[in-house]
């Protein structure tokens, strides 16, 4: 079945340079004495250590597990002893060190117990969790953890599974050799992926500059129980970009900021399918990969390399670098970066090592000002306006750069390639992107700090009020008690006074009883008068007098 092909905007035709390395079979590099395994070999969280210095390790044993959903495990490529766990230089554009495990090989290369997975008998979620623990990541170079992409999503069912064998970057031939030599194994992996995603349709996209690979894949797919189409796509850089390949094969564009699953498509590299097969059918985690070593070396070719092998040893395996070599590029010449040192290990992202020489990549002539010719816009495969983005990034007008969708830029380098002024445009976009990400992170941190500060102030206020309320309560309690006591006291005083009065009345000398009636009448009259004056006197309101009276 020949499906209609579509076209993406722009693209360029840089010189291929594939023949140097494509015509020799994959060579297995002998196991070195020492391997350095960075814990950050994938996109997402750094893996969590599971071993300590001095531990005896078997080949394929888990060294670090995935931390969270977007993360992947790291395994031992051979048996031996953990010699060190420390920060070492890793192959990263920053040239900064990161945490690595150093494994001293014992030369026995003894495997841990391997068990094939009966993936159809197990629940799919279990198979996906096992893939995460096997360290399966996208081997096209982006190293996104594959288990995340293999989950079935009820909201976005995958109708089409696309396998990316386009390999559009110049010089790189590792996928080409893999498809030529191990097509059946790749197809076994594709079958597992298709089963996990429940995708009814499956296509393998291969650029038409690799007819041998396409033929081998076609032959292998013909033997497969499921229908897998092998489609040759026109050679046009960056036709191997996931979104570009999806456009070419299905005619559908992945919307800005969305995932391919939202248009019912999922895309994997063919080498990833191969590692899925090795794990599911043989129980082997990801401990090696195929790397193209090319450029200014004596015997360019493809090598099956244990992860952690130092790149200088790999270059030696390719016959050593020529005398003019002035640097090493990891990845292709369009999207790769210069290695900070040759003494860094091979990681899961290492698809190609190019020993560069001035004759291959002459130094760029000095840049001229932008003349706004918009050739970059014509070449841009994601329909951006690179000349605008350049202005905004250059003036650090980052919000504007974001508005012009700088995050849709795939950093393919087409704009650099066509720019008549030789402006390093992609460097500006990378700068703008990482600056925006850093600012967003700082903003998040500030929001967190604000929240925590507000919470603290609220808590202090609440505690203050609670304390005040407690004090008030205690004070009020004391008052009621004291007033009761007062009243009791007053009552007691009143009672005592009453008693005293009564006593006084009782004990007062009633010596008038024996007097004659006339005298008694006189006494009574005097008493009455006295009572009258005493009752009148308070009315007179003379306190002094009253006091005197009392």
């Amino acid at each position, binding site marked *: 079945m020949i499906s209609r092909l579509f076209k993406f905007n722009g693209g360029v035709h840089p010189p291929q340079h594939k023949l140097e390395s494509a015509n020799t079979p994959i060579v297995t590099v002998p196991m070195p004495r020492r391997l350095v395994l960075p814990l950050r070999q994938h996109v997402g969280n750094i893996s969590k250590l599971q071993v300590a210095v001095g531990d005896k390790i078997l080949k394929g044993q888990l060294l670090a597990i995935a931390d969270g959903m977007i993360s992947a495990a790291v395994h031992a490529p051979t048996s031996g002893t953990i010699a060190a766990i420390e920060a070492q230089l890793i192959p990263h554009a920053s040239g900064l060190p990161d945490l690595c495990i150093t494994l001293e090989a014992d030369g026995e290369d003894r495997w841990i117990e391997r068990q094939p997975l009966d993936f159809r008998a197990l629940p799919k979620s279990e198979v996906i969790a096992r893939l995460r623990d096997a360290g399966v990541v996208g081997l096209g170079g982006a190293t996104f953890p594959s288990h995340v992409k293999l989950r079935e999503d009820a909201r976005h069912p995958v109708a089409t599974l696309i396998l990316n064998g386009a390999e559009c970057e110049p010089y790189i031939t590792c996928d080409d050799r893999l498809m030529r030599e191990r097509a059946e194994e790749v197809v076994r992996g594709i079958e597992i992926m298709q089963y996990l995603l429940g995708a009814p349709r499956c296509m393998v996209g291969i650029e038409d500059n690799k007819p041998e690979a396409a033929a081998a894949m076609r032959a292998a797919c013909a033997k497969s129980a499921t229908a897998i189409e092998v489609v040759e796509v026109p050679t046009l850089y960056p036709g191997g970009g996931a979104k570009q390949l999806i456009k070419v094969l299905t005619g559908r564009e992945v919307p800005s900021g969305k995932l391919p699953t939202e248009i019912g498509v999922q895309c994997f590299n063919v080498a990833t399918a191969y590692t899925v097969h090795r794990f599911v059918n043989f129980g082997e985690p990801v401990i090696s990969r195929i790397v193209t070593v090319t450029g200014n070396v004596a015997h360019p070719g493809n090598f099956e390399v244990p992860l952690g092998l130092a790149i200088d040893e790999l270059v030696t395996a390719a016959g050593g670098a020529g005398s003019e070599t002035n640097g090493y590029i990891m990845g292709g010449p369009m999207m790769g970066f210069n290695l900070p040192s040759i003494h860094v290990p091979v990681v899961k992202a290492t698809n190609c090592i190019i020993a560069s020489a001035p004759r291959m990549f002459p130094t760029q002539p000095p840049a001229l*000002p932008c003349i706004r010719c918009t050739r970059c816009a014509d070449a841009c495969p994601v329909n951006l306006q690179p000349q605008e983005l350049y202005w905004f990034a250059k003036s650090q007008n980052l919000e504007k750069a974001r508005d012009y969708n700088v995050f849709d830029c795939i950093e393919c380098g087409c704009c650099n390639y066509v720019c008549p002024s030789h402006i*390093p445009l992609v460097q500006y976009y990378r700068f703008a992107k990482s600056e925006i990400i850093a600012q967003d992170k700082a903003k998040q941190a500030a929001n967190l700090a604000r929240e925590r500060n507000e919470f603290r102030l609220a808590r202090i206020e609440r505690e203050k009020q609670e304390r005040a309320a407690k004090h008030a309560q205690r004070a009020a309690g004391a008052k009621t008690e004291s007033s009761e006591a007062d009243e009791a006291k007053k009552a007691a005083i009143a009672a005592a006074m009453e008693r005293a009065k009564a006593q006084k009345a009782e004990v007062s000398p009633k010596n008038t009883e024996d007097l004659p009636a006339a005298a008694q009448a006189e006494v009574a009259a005097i008493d009455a008068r006295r009572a009258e004056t005493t009752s009148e006197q308070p009315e007179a309101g003379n306190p002094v007098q009253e006091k005197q009276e009392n």
Partner: protein
Amino acid sequence: MLTALLVMLGLALLLGIVLGYSALKFKVEGDPLVDKIDAILPQTQCGQCGYPGCKPYATAIAKGEADINQCPPGGDAGMRALADLLGVEPKPLNAEHGLPKPKSVAVIDENLCIGCTLCIQACPVDAILGAAKHMHTVIASECTGCELCLAPCPVDCISMEPIGESVATWKWRYPVYELKQTA
């Protein structure tokens, strides 16, 4: 004439009712300007500006009591953002309030800590964990680097350590290259 008067009167009444209703319905709680200023401030809560936190400083700026160049952690970029928001001229940071420093986190020397809880009380974002007579420690991810815990510590066991660049926080540099001389 009368019709015109009535029409104008009716319109005035109608618009008055609409405006009065919207004034009640769409009433803005608080001062939106304070929130906008507060969003620019780095939320270090360090008090170097002379106010007890970022929000009080934002309030003071909104009232016109404080200047925009009193926040060293916000740096020149923060000052420019404030100038932009308020429509005033940017001015250099006032050195009286301190100079910008590289972002740091507090680290407690756990061998020296006596567990007095004074730093816990000083921390504006509750980033120090510990209890009386027990060792304290700083939650590095929450620490804003305000240095407010340094002064209260009776045994001087807290130090500020600058956050170095790592692979996870590394940024691409601004491209610097030579332009061809044309003239």
